[in-house]
């Protein structure tokens, strides 16, 4: 039961991260690929302040807030004038810097040895984890309500207008850079604070927690759920993290032999689900839209070509196993099929 509460708490953290990313990318169109950087910064800052400086949870949280505002503002100032590709690269670089600093600055972070133990803000015996879960739930529900209200508000419409045509929006009398900066900082600070709230959950922090897969998991969840829908983040995290990490990986009745395969299968199924959603519902599960007929035709021909290619590869592999001394495909049919696949793709 304690493990279930732990994983559900993590799920809430992921929902919060996806909601913050929804504000940045879904509403404003800022491609922040440094989610794990902000989250990791908050988490390690909380750890260092609590463990190394022996601060209380509340004092540490306040300092994390101040630090995250400063860092988010600096990042916003650096990246918000860049084009989307450059923003993407710069935010990835930011996450890499945070990850490296955690390893190299051993005087504060203890490097690869790890940092712990981080305390819960309160302790009520066996019910601490439950109460902390309830606290996280309240935080994430509050965040979701904020996002729902933002969507319907004139501010939300302004953010969408900036995302769709920033130049036009500027000619309507809004300093679009200031608006983007404000909401970028708000969302990044939320990511940092969610990191700070993750620290007591993990209790012991190691550098291998700050890995790009956290960013990708949040992005996949948001895209699956629907980046432009106010509930897309929640649905996306439940479909990915909730379904695979909690339900299948933890509770599915799998034999010990297959248990090793499950984590890899999870990644495979993540990818498959993402492809299916991108093909059949490009704007996400919660955005009711169907691609036009010419897109369907392209999807069909690409699927047929990919199927032919896969069959050819399978045939070639089979032949190579049966005739290990032959480098070329055993028969010309495979080569012809290969040509056919290439034609189909073009």
């Amino acid at each position, binding site marked *: 039961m304690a493990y279930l509460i732990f994983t559900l708490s993590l799920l809430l953290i992921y929902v919060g991260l996806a909601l913050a990313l929804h504000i940045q990318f879904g509403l404003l169109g800022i491609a922040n690929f440094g989610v794990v950087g902000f989250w990791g910064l908050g988490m390690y800052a909380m750890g260092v302040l609590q463990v190394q400086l022996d601060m209380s949870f509340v004092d540490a949280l306040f300092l994390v807030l101040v630090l995250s505002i400063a860092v988010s503002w600096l990042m916003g100032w650096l990246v918000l004038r860049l084009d989307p590709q450059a923003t993407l690269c710069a935010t990835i670089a930011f996450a890499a810097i945070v990850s490296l600093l955690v390893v190299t600055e051993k005087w504060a972070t203890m490097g690869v040895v790890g940092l712990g133990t981080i305390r819960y803000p309160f302790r009520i015996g066996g019910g601490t984890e439950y109460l902390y879960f309830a606290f996280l739930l309240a935080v994430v529900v509050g965040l979701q309500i904020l996002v729902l209200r933002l969507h319907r508000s004139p501010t939300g419409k302004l953010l*969408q207008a900036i995302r769709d045509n920033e130049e036009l929006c500027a000619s309507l*009398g809004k300093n679009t850079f200031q608006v983007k900066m404000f909401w970028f900082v708000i969302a990044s600070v939320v990511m940092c604070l969610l990191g700070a709230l993750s620290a007591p959950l993990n209790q012991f922090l190691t550098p291998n927690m700050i890995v790009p897969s956290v960013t990708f998991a949040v992005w996949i969840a948001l895209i699956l759920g629907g980046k*432009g829908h106010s509930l897309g983040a929640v649905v996306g995290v439940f479909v990915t993290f909730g379904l695979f990490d909690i339900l299948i990986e933890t509770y599915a009745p799998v034999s010990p032999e297959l248990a090793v395969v499950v984590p890899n299968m999870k990644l495979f199924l993540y990818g498959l689900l993402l492809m299916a959603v991108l093909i059949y519902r490009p704007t996400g599960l919660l955005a009711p839209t169907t691609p036009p007929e010419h897109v369907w035709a392209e999807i069909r021909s690409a699927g047929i070509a990919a199927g032919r290619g896969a069959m050819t590869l399978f045939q070639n592999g089979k032949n190579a196993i049966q005739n290990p001394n032959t480098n070329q495909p055993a028969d010309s049919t495979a080569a012809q099929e290969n040509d056919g696949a290439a034609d189909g793709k073009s």
Partner: protein
Amino acid sequence: MFDVQNLGSGYGDVQIISELSFGVGNEILAVLGANGAGKTTLLATLAKVIPVRSGAITWQGQDVSASPAYELSKRGIAYVPQEGNVFPNLSVAENLSLGALVGTRPKEDRLTEVYDLFPRLAERKEQRAGSLSGGEGQMLAVGRALMQDPQLLLLDEPSAGLSPLYVDILFQTITEARKSREISIVLAEQNAKKTLEIADRVLVLSLGRMHLLEAAKDLSMKRLMKAYHI
């Protein structure tokens, strides 16, 4: 009121507008010229969507050459670009409401006025702007600019791609708005015949330079066509 002196602008290494000087009073100033003459670049520069490279723009006695686009909007200059002039994912009403980001009059009053000018927009106020027809989209763009309560309106080829019926409606509305609100208008157009009917003065551009600036009533279509082919 609005004064342009030795204006120069362009994109990257390419200089499009050179040494252009003119003023705009309480009138409709039509900017005409062949394709590539620099009409769109001129209006985008006046709206500060692209920066001024040389020269000066003065508005109500103040130099606004270095002001960003949002400052000009706050000072009463509205701009309707030729393309990408609506927010496709927002509804008609939401598009119009964004026009009320500047100005002091109640938004509802301004919305009522725009709906009176363009009844078609009132019928479609809940519809996504991306699903409007070309003519309705242009009406929406002009309507949103009027929501800004502008003193100067920069219109870049509002009739481009519209059917004759929509062109008539649009030009009629522009004339009505000009008369009822006393808005100065700079109107870049390809439709020379229609433009001559409503313009007070005409500026003909050729390769980014001023070729002709004269009162519309003194300008015959024959002379205008000759100017196009310089």
